[in-house]
């Protein structure tokens, strides 16, 4: 990859620019028939969201998932349509409010934090565990 320095951008007021994603090199002569399809800008939603009807954004508060690279203030993309598996990062209801934890099914069902400061929460045999959805991505901004 070659990066060319074009100069500094002015601070603040950035115009919204859609970045065209070119699939083909530019040829001289006959254009490729595929060129009709090229100038579709890259859309982050398309990359991150598989099921728009079932996907929600939530914001993280605190450092309980820091070892899974989910920092304070991160935005989580939560897909409710995905079946949670062993080791899925999920949003689950704990004592009447939603929290982000790692779901472990073995050896015992528990919701584990990714920070040694916080102990795991074990789910008893007759307790109901309400999982709102599976976290499919975390957006940390730096």
């Amino acid at each position: 990859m070659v990066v060319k320095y074009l100069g500094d951008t002015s601070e603040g007021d950035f115009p919204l620019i859609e970045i065209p994603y070119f699939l083909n090199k530019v040829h001289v002569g006959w254009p490729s028939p595929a060129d009709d399809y090229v100038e579709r800008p890259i859309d982050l939603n398309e990359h991150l969201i598989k099921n728009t009807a079932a996907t929600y954004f939530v914001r993280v508060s605190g450092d309980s998932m820091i070892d899974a690279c989910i920092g304070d203030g991160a935005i989580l993309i939560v897909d409710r349509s995905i079946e949670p598996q062993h080791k899925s990062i999920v949003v689950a209801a704990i004592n009447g409010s939603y929290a982000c934890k790692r779901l472990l099914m073995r050896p015992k069902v528990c919701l584990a934090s990714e920070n040694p400061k916080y102990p795991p929460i074990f789910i008893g045999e007759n307790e109901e565990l309400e999982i709102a959805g599976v976290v499919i991505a975390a957006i940390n901004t730096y």
Partner: protein
Amino acid sequence: MTYALVDCNSFYASCERVFRPDLKDTPIVVLSNNDGCVVALSKEAKNVGIKMCEPWFKIKNSFANKGGVAFSSNYELYADISARVMQTLEHLAPRIEIYSIDEAFLDLSGVDFCTDLDQFGHECQEKVKRWTGMPVRVGIGPTKTLAKAASYGAKKYTATQGVVDLSKQERQRKLMSIMPVEEIWGVGSRLKAHLNRMGITTALDLADTDTKLIRRRFSIVLERTVMELKGYPCIGLEEHPSTKKEIVVSRTFGKKVTTLESINEAVSDYAARASEKLRREKQYCKVVSVFARTNPFRLQDQQYSNILSCKLSSPTNDTRDILHATKMLSRRVYKKGYNFIKAGVMLSDFYDKDVYQSDFFIPNSRRPKSERLMKTIDKINATGGSRITFAAQGIKKPWSMQRHFQSPKYTTNWNDLLVVK
């Protein structure tokens, strides 16, 4: 034919629960604009004796004592959840008709050959609940009217677990025999008295009536309903909502308003909102109306109500043109010495872009760069952060609605996202 009606259970109250697991079994009511009265309630609220349309101030204390929670209406949230429910349903059936914010008809032709319909109903419930958090009930039948009746059965009888399949005639007759005639889609309380006098009290009585007699005594519309109850589909699926013919934005004021400036500000605010809606519909309007009225429940007040319209020289969707018209109109609608409680703006006489004939005597009546300016404003206002408003809309807005108990706009505003630990 096979239709399913999917209906959300206490839709507004259920929306409030999606992001609040702590409210799972709590009685919930949703209040009208200005927190006036109850417009929606959960099953639990019904069980503690709350009724629809009850004034909030009357039940406020007793409801809190019963552990209930009240919300001001949060239409942004409801519209978003509704769209998600409808989108989910589109995964389940090839053709759907969005009938209202919380109901949709599904065309199950084709589906009925390969799946057990009762099982389909339960799958549908499970999928919508999983994907969106919304509990729904499903009524299935060979016509839309019977699907509606099935949904009534699913709501009324808990043993059905929210799914009723009326594809078999004996089941149709069994349910209709215990269903009051006014509960049928398209009958209602107005026709009830008339039908009762003819000895028709249950849905089954109506289904067994001669259709010709119904047409003679009532209308072709009711005849169609009877045909549908007999199992002959007469009402098809309407997949494409017709384009809007008018846009109305009106609100009840938070408190009574007496000055022209306040009325002007409120009307300008509604006009800006209406223009935004108009642009979303990609339409241009030629007629602008403004109305205002006093509070008819304040018997001690002098009453007044008026609506005035004006026709523009050419169709527009530029907020500035519409504000210009509403300003002129509100000055004429306003009368000194009255306590106004409500005002509104209506836009009508719509044109598609470039369809209308421009006025020969007023060349270039459209403002230059109007389209781009409006687009930019809409774009900024859609971000959920700061808003661009016209000075006429006012800043303090003392007349604006009271919504003391509104939940966050979890899905439509970055600042309102659900916070998880």
